């Protein structure tokens, strides 16, 4: 038993640029340095697939498989990630990949195995592994549409509440079912009402879990630590407004009525008039009183890191261990003071962070406190710390 979550072994096969890779690790953080296109982010993606969801690239299952030039016939191969995890609940062997049996029948399906047992659904992954990431693609998180912000928030919720991924999946399944029926003009009133009932039950549970995380984050005290700015966060949406002002039973009735009355509109425009898919995560730089999208690029990144670290502290307290932190090309954008603080806090919290960068020198602050690998052309070499 340990009081941390860490990967102690990871093995990849037919995964992106890796034909096969096997790494044995200790529980300290992992630093991957090397030129662009060497395979650093691919390894982070593999680790992200040990937690629920589609991984840090949200790639389609078939896209992850290794192909050209190794596989010129274009046939999709069954990729796999297998890992030994140390968790506060004991050691687990986790496997995730493209199901070879389904693939043989021409279908792409994710296979999940824990301790050799096949699991249905991905919530089982959430019970043993949580991962949170920050990637260059998320630089525009505060500027782009709200769906990426909701995904970011949901990922933080998974870490504290593994069942959240099942609720989100159930809600989205019902949302898509209703949209299809409305578009085709097929559903009778009772059929649509049954689907809307499922949306109400799961949708409100999703909204409540999100609000609960924000409340816990703000209760955990000020988010400003050291040189990182404090972020103030709120959820905006009809559902959130109702939940704040009305008893849950009334919110259920209200949402049910809104969905029923909104059928013709939703049939014409798609989506649903109300639900957690319409909420937005609002973030402000607390000290400046400025909305995050108005802050400089560097400050936006610092705000995101501040939120991720506040969540890590909260999760360490609540579940006995923080999530795996996957920080892709993050360190290069921090000034020396913030870099030092980030490294010290990662070590102090005992989380295993996987960090990438092109410049080894930027990670000097972790010398002797992390495992350093040089990545070149999909080959990893362990560096001895000076």
């Amino acid at each position, binding site marked *: 038993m340990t009081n941390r979550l860490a990967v102690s072994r990871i093995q990849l096969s037919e995964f992106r640029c890796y034909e096969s890779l096997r790494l044995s690790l200790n529980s300290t953080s992992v630093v991957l340095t090397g030129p662009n296109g060497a395979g650093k982010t691919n390894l982070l993606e593999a680790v992200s697939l040990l937690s629920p969801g589609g991984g840090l690239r949200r790639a389609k299952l078939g896209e992850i498989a290794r192909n050209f030039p190794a596989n010129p016939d274009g046939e999709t191969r069954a990729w796999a990630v297998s890992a030994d995890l140390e968790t506060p609940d004991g050691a687990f062997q986790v496997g995730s990949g493209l199901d070879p049996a389904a693939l043989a029948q021409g279908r792409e399906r994710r296979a999940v195995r824990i301790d050799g047992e096949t699991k249905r659904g991905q919530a089982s992954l959430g019970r043993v592994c949580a991962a949170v990431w920050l990637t260059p693609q998320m630089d525009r998180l505060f500027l782009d549409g709200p769906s990426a912000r909701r995904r970011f928030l949901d990922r933080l919720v998974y870490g504290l509440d593994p069942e959240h991924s099942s609720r989100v999946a159930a809600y989205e399944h*019902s949302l898509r079912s209703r949209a299809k029926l409305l578009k085709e003009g097929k559903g*009778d009133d009772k059929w649509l009402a*049954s689907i809307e009932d499922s949306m109400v039950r799961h949708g409100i549970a999703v909204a409540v879990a999100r609000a609960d995380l924000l409340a816990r984050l703000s209760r955990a005290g000020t988010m400003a630590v050291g040189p990182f700015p404090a972020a103030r966060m709120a959820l905006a949406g009809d559902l959130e407004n109702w939940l704040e002002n009305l008893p849950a039973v009334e919110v259920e009735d209200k949402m049910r009525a809104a969905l029923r009355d909104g059928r013709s509109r939703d049939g014409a425009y798609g989506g649903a008039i109300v639900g957690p898919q319409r909420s937005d995560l609002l973030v402000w730089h607390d000290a400046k009183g400025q909305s995050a999208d108005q802050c400089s690029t560097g400050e936006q990144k610092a705000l995101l890191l501040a939120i991720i670290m506040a969540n890590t502290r909260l999760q360490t307290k609540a579940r006995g261990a923080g999530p795996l932190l996957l920080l892709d090309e993050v360190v290069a954008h921090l000034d020396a003071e913030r870099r030092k603080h980030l490294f010290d806090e990662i070590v102090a919290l005992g989380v295993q962070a996987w960090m990438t960068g092109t410049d080894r020198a930027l990670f000097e602050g972790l010398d002797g406190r992390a495992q350093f690998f040089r990545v070149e052309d999909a080959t990893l070499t362990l560096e001895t710390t000076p």
Partner: protein
Amino acid sequence: MTGREIENLIKLLSRLPGLGPRSARRAVLQMLKKPEMLMLPLADSLRATADAMTTCSNCGNIDVTDPCHICADYNRGPDIICVVEEVQDLWALERGASFKGQYHVLGGTLSPLDGVGPDDLKIDQLINRARADEVTEVILATNATVDGQTTAHYITERLIETGVKVTRLAHGVPVGGELDYLDDGTLAAALRSRSVV
């Protein structure tokens, strides 16, 4: 390696659920070693079953008689109908041998994403059966999946007009299960459907 007939047999067997090419090859080899004891009786049995099999026009079970042996059994009460998604669910409940009423196989679940609607399932037939005077209760035993639960909700709404009592299977702690190992959702469901002892 082997003749076309044998390869064909292996190919056919490996399409069955639970059997891959390797286990199909082992099964075929075993039969080839004991043609009189295994292979010919199996062939006869397959032929006889294929000729006789039929779907029960009352409940949707697969059997060799219509009505099936369950519907034809006078020792089973006519007052309760248990609704299941597929024949395999009916067989699972029969293995448990604790239900002595009637069944109704829907043939799947409502699933707009797969293009399955109420007309594709045996829902109208269920409503008609539930209207019969002797029927007092309908048990919904659909799976605890999103589509299974949506289908149960839909059937409940449709059954209101018949005035029959509608119940569903309990969700919660499995027999012999330890609370510590249950996920939060199952525990919450178990608490909600607690019963007086």
